[in-house]
């Protein structure tokens, strides 16, 4: 793989089998076997023959309707879901924020959860302990909240802590799935600045977002996915434009934010 690339995706297809029958239990399996019934399954093709290169230091936006395969693609890049065909080569340490507060234990304090979140994403104990204060400062929760159980947090505060962990572990590649909706306007501004800093350090960011203005503001390229296919690739403005036309809702400013 050329050195300037952070991610190379070659002819990637991801299919998975969904079990239509309700419960996957031994009891049901034995019952079915005794009646000679087969398990009813459906194959979902989440990503179809996708080829894409993402250079270091770029910000890629992924737009598309629900069920387009955006999250599946992100999970495949992170190495969570294996490809069915094709391959993905990733050069660099990946940090993911695919769902807010993954690995968080609601009974523990924000500070404990920062340590747990950092360890879950692959930091060593020494690294995360060194960074805990910095991450807590970045999250900037109201007085004393950082030492209170996470279950007492508002969803915004929860998101801020999760986001702070993901962006402060200095990843080479940061994968964000709808995480930018965390926090209020000032936190959003801070998040954007942090991401621009990451880009300036030649780190790579892939963002899945329905907030199209964010894609326009932050990304330097974008792709549009629909039912597993990559329909278009190019400058974010052009892609967002095409996507909006496809949705047939026009390009009114109100559609640009938080769609």
């Amino acid at each position, binding site marked *: 793989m050329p050195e300037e690339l952070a991610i190379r995706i070659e002819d990637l297809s991801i299919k998975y*089998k969904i079990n239509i029958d309700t419960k*996957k*239990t031994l009891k049901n*399996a034995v019952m079915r076997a005794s009646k000679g019934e087969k398990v009813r399954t459906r194959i979902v093709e989440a990503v179809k023959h996708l080829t894409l290169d993402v250079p270091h230091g770029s910000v890629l936006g992924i737009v598309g309707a629900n069920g387009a395969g955006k999250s599946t693609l992100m*999970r495949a890049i*992170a*190495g969570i879901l294996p*490809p069915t065909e094709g391959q993905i080569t990733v050069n660099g340490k990946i940090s993911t924020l695919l769902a807010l507060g993954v690995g968080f234990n609601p009974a523990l304090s924000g500070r404990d959860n920062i340590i747990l979140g950092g360890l879950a994403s692959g930091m*060593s104990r020494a690294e995360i302990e060194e960074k805990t204060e910095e991450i807590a400062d970045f999250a900037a929760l109201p007085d004393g909240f950082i030492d209170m159980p996470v279950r007492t947090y508002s969803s915004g505060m929860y998101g801020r802590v999760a986001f702070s962990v993901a962006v402060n572990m200095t990843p080479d590649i940061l994968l964000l799935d709808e995480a930018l909706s965390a926090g209020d306007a000032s936190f959003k501004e801070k998040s954007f600045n942090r991401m621009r800093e990451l880009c300036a350090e030649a780190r790579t960011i892939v963002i899945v977002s329905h907030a199209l203005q964010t894609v326009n503001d932050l990304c330097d390229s974008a792709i549009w996915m629909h039912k597993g296919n990559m329909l278009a690739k190019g400058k974010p403005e052009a892609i967002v434009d095409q996507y909006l036309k496809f949705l047939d809702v026009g390009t009114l400013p109100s559609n640009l934010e938080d769609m």
Partner: protein
Amino acid sequence: MANPKTNFAPAIQVFKPHRASLPPLIPYLKEFWRRRAFAIELSRFADKAEYLDSKLGKVWLVMNPLLLAFVYFLLVTVIRGGSTEKSGLSTLAHILIGLFTFYFASNSINGGALSITAGGRLILNQAFPRALLPLSSSISAFWQFLPTLPVYILVVVIGKLFFPHTQIPGLRLSYLWAPFIILCVGITGYGMGLLFATMNVYFRDTNKLLSYITRIWLYSSPVLWRPEILHGWHKIFLYINPLGPSLASTSDVWIEGRTPSLGMLVGSIVWAFLAVLIGGYFFISRERDFAVRI
């Protein structure tokens, strides 16, 4: 592009299709070892969260097997039609240490079995060697087991004050075998935890089945009965039980005060290896499928 300051996973990673086969084992095991702190801390934090508001909850962890041991002791004594003072204490001690050790393994297996299905969000959103989750359950089981040892010693010390002629030994060199046997039990428990964790992903009622298996397993292990009652070819029942050799060795060390027989020691090691090899093979060869099935 890898961050020079951090000792992270290989800088270039390639994700390819797989067919229920093992991933390259050396990078997997390296990554597993590198991230061991996650398993340790996950267990510590889970423990902290569970007993944050109830200090008595921890006491219960010891009380539960202790009370159960007394119940089984009564049961065994009644079935046997009473006991002499001399054998009574050693029977109680044998049941206590056997049950504590058995619970260490079964907590590790039960916790491990649930660790993958319960860690669903983590599995869907972070890439890490999944075998760390059952490891975390085994570590928790170990921390629950550890405080039961002083309880055992306390019961024996007090018992010896009342029945000085009991056969239970005082301090013996054979006790030095105890950590090794506990290690074998721990590894066997972890290996079986990996196996049942994999099964539980495919069949969600595995843990229900496991509660019956555990009970039958307890009754067929040398916990409520002494391993000496088996003679001749009946001894095979000790060897075909994954915990048989290590529980028989436990009884040798703590109750008889002697070095376990070579057969039992080899049996303990063989089962520990087999459990980790078989459990590990099933688990690691299928773990990339977990994110799809969770």
